[in-house]
């Protein structure tokens, strides 16, 4: 579950080739010697896809094992290179966030950019790291996962509760049996007591005698 690259480009209809405004790469998964190749590939691919994405349109392109997601928003385009198992929805919400941040920080200056700028934007690099886990990027996904965990726990609790109920029923039975048994014994004892009281009364006359 990794993001290979994040790019922010400017692709308006008047510029034939999209201009890369900011980029962040993470090539840890690839062989060291291929890094420049991959960087070249990423740039080329990113600008191509961004160029072909119409404004306010989202696109996903699959290339071997990697998927490229592109989101164009009024000329400002965010492209992300992720692997297969990154869910599409999280990818696009991530691109959304990236675009928002960019607009917040850089305002509208990007519109005038004509060539590839090499300024490093640390937010992108952080984003690359942070959003390896799609749950971070997509709040809905996070909520969903937590809800599922909670419901698992609740089901276990209910099972325990049912077992407790059974044991309580057991106890009720036994205690009521005990109750009845002890009542019988009391009755038995009371009868014996009455008998011996009477006996003693009669005997007491003899003693006096």
């Amino acid at each position, binding site marked *: 579950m990794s993001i290979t690259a994040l790019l922010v480009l400017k692709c308006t209809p008047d510029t034939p080739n999209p201009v890369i405004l900011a980029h962040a790469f993470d090539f840890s998964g690839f062989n060291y010697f291929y890094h420049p190749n991959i960087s070249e590939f990423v740039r080329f691919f990113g600008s191509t896809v961004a160029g072909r994405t119409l404004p306010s349109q989202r*696109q996903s392109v*699959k290339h071997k094992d990697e998927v490229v997601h592109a989101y164009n928003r009024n000329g400002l385009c965010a492209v992300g290179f992720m692997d297969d198992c990154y869910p*599409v929805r999280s990818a*696009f919400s991530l691109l959304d966030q990236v675009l928002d941040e960019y607009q917040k920080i850089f305002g509208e200056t990007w519109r005038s950019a004509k060539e590839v700028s090499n300024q490093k934007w640390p937010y992108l690099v952080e984003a690359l790291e942070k959003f390896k886990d799609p749950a971070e990027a997509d709040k809905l996904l996070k909520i969903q996962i937590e809800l599922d965990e909670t*419901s698992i726990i609740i089901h276990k609790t209910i099972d325990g*509760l049912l077992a407790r109920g059974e044991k309580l029923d057991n106890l009720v039975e036994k205690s009521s049996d*005990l109750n009845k048994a002890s009542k019988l014994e009391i009755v038995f004892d009371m009868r014996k007591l009455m008998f011996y009281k009477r006996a003693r009364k009669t005997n007491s006359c003899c003693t006096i005698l």
Partner: protein
Amino acid sequence: MQARRGQSSYRDRTDEFFGIVETLRRSIAPDAANNVPYGGGGGGRREDPRSAVANQSEFKKRAAVIGLAINQTSQKLSKLAQLAKRSSVFDDPTREIQELTAVIKQEISSLNSALIDLQAVRNSHNDERTISRDTTTHSATVVDDLKNRLMDTTKEFKDVLTLRTENMKIHEIRRQRFTSNPSKESTNPFVRQRPLASKPAATQPAPLPWASSSSSSSSSSQLVPRRQGEAESSPLLQQSQQQQQQMVPLQDTYMESRAEALHNVESTILELSNIFTQLATMVSQQGEIAIRIDQNMEDTLANVEGAQSQLARYLNSISSNRWLMIKIFFVLIAFLMVFLFFVA
């Protein structure tokens, strides 16, 4: 009807023929009497009085109609079974199958109600007049036979439906092999899976809720429109299968997936609240039980303590009795001594 004829084909049916002729003469509705001859003791019925025959013939008519309808339904069912077995990936006669299924379901339910009516008619006839024992047993047997055949038909119908769902599953798997990215989400461990669909929790693919609850329309209808939306792009994909890159328009799917995710969250929360309320109810009930147990134990304790005091007193009285007895014994000995003195 044909099966019944086949069963009784080796019987001598002249008696029945005579019976039919008489019924024809007597009964009010003439043409339905053609359906009357089904295998059974036709001889005894000839002697019934006229009203009984009329009532019997109505019963027979209905039974015959039901039998015929059951036959037709089973024929349609066999056609449906053929269609279901035949379907391939592309030439899928889904609509026809669904229509047939609906028709068959309707027919089965109407047959059910007709059978119940038939039984009611028979009971009312039995209450009205006195009839021979044979007739009652016969009508009972007929009704049972019809019921059995209807049950068999329903069972076959169910089998056909299961077969159909299995086929659909196989199609989906094949389709997934040919398409790629959009449907790969089903194997994604991060796609939301129902962890409580069965006990071994986490690694269930998304097609499973659809396949395992094929008759529950909610989950299937959720997934099926999505799959259909992507299946429409699959012919394009199969054309460009040679290419490694595929451009798939995702705009609608994205919105749909967000909407679906929201729905899922909402329904999960509802379920959770439900479970919580049940939990609270059960806990309060068990609290009552616990109080009862407590009460019982206190009563028992009081009883046992009382029993213990009784026993103690009992013991006392026993021992005091002994003391009394000793006294009496001494008195006796005194008397003996006096007696001995006087004698000796």
